[in-house]
């Protein structure tokens, strides 16, 4: 089946993509968004049982602010901790309403399911928001929206558009991707339970070795991560295809992106195979030693691909920070 490049299982990217497209002259594709936000390169593994929360257990405010920044937007953030004081509830509602009045939906979390979604309308008389997330669409009352039992009352809104060049965008994206993959990304309160980047593969293999994987959670993780890496490959291929040969920057991007794409293809292929072993939502049988060992072997291959891929991306990042001379006579 042909991969659809306008849908992803990474809800943060869907929400960002959905939101920025309300802007008049947004010309980002979902592939661009997945790549430039770094979501195509993320892996966030619960080290106990690869639980279902993994893919969304990152510091939302920090990551989404940087994501929007990479794409050329200033953002606003509400993330008051539960129990949320009434004043902060109404301030958060006001932030959403202000965004909608300016024509942009607000990015929220856990509207219908614990995923990122969009609030695109409000009605004070009925005290409801109009909202959509990966599973549902409809109205959510202000009261229910505010009733956060744990965690934070999360909303990110798009503020001003502050575009920068495609060179800047790519450099900022690579900075996030490299930091994530090498485990340097700020992981806030999640760092004790979740492993990111290459360490995520190790944590996952370890869970499988111990036969402790939660079938549902693991199936969800592999669905999200394999989809993400397919986008990663597509993003790198599009860099190669769309950038020109006009100058050393464009040429270097094309060269390194095309080389990296090969390694990420290895990663994506292995993850797709694991996805078939553990189909969502049933999750197959991770208790079966033969299946688990096969999955571990595939994860090792996936990790190897990513290890090589990230070396190239890191090289590209250093290059984008300080370009080589176009002509060098020595």
């Amino acid at each position, binding site marked *: 089946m042909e991969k659809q490049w306008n849908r992803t299982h990474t809800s943060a990217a869907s929400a960002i993509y959905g939101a920025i497209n309300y802007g008049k002259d947004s010309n980002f594709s979902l592939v661009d968004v997945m790549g430039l936000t770094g979501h195509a390169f993320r892996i966030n593994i619960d080290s106990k049982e690869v639980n279902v929360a993994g893919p969304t257990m990152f510091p939302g405010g920090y990551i989404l602010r940087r994501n929007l920044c990479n794409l050329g937007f200033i953002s606003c953030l509400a993330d008051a901790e539960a129990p949320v*004081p009434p004043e902060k509830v109404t301030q958060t509602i006001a932030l959403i*309403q202000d965004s909608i*009045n300016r024509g942009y*939906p607000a990015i929220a979390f856990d509207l219908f399911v614990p995923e990122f979604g969009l609030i695109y309308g409000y009605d004070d008389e009925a005290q409801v928001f109009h909202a959509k997330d990966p599973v549902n669409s409809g109205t959510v009352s202000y009261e229910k929206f505010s009733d956060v039992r744990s965690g934070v009352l999360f909303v990110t809104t798009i503020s001003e558009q502050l575009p920068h060049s495609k060179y800047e965008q790519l450099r900022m994206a690579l900075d996030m991707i490299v930091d994530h993959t090498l485990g340097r990304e700020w992981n806030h309160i999640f760092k004790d339970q979740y492993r990111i980047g290459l360490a995520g593969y190790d944590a996952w293999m370890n869970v499988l070795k111990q036969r402790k994987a939660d079938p549902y959670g693991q199936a969800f993780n592999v669905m999200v991560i394999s989809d993400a890496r397919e986008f990663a490959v597509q993003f790198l291929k599009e860099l190669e295809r769309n950038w020109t040969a006009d100058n050393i920057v464009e040429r270097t991007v094309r060269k390194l992106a095309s080389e990296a794409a090969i390694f990420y293809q290895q990663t994506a292929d292995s993850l797709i195979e694991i996805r078939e072993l553990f189909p969502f939502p049933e999750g197959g049988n991770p208790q079966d030693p033969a299946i688990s060992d096969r999955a571990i072997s595939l994860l090792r291959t996936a990790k190897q691909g990513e290890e090589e891929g990230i070396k190239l991306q890191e090289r590209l990042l250093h290059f984008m920070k300080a370009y080589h001379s176009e002509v060098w006579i020595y």
Partner: protein
Amino acid sequence: MSNPIITKEELLVRSIMLTNQTNETTNISPPTELVEQARAGDQDAFSELVRLHRKKALGWAESITKDSFLAEDIVQDALIRAFLKLGTLMDAKKFLPWLRQIVRNQAYMKMRRGGPYKHEQPFSLFTKQKEAGPLYAEQVDWSDVDQILFYLSRSSREQAKQKEPIASLLRAEIMDNIRSLLHCLTEKERRVFEAHFFGELAPSDIASLFGMQTANVYNLLSRSKRKVQKERIRLSINDYVKERARAKLPSKQILAPPPDF
């Protein structure tokens, strides 16, 4: 059944207003019948109790605070608490020492702190881990009803400083706030809640008072706190929406739905 809290509160606020200028005081315990009547919700009886003991209470408070303004504040708080706790007073004959203890508690709490917290005190003595009451909304732990109540009374007092002549009306506002919050509880929840937060009774005492298991009291208190927290947010949202309508801000705006995720 009708809501006895409402009438009691109105009565209380009125009593405090009416007795502001009273000169009368007495060392004699009030007639037991008067206390009984007040406990049963008799408005005149409670007014009379306040009238009889207001100046005495001010004396107790002032002997600790050495500040008549502060003493006035303490007594107003103490009377609100006394009123709310009245139902838990077992022996009507002990009204006077009981009231004195409440006033002294209030006064000591206020005096315990200095510096910027000089005029603050937690609403309950039993907030052991929170030495200073919250000054600002963002400091309030909204899962902790002590703090909510403290914050409510404090913000009301702040306003009272600016609009002195209607200070008594602002008292009514506190009571309105408390009332509207407790309104979300069932009768049983409210009795236990009040016994704990206004009566300052430990859960084990409440358990024996109402013939419950201590564990159930904890459950009920925790459930009640959560309900009160939700109720507080519900009311804030109502106010917020009304405020927007008053300010003629758009009441409805719906963008085109986003494409499917």
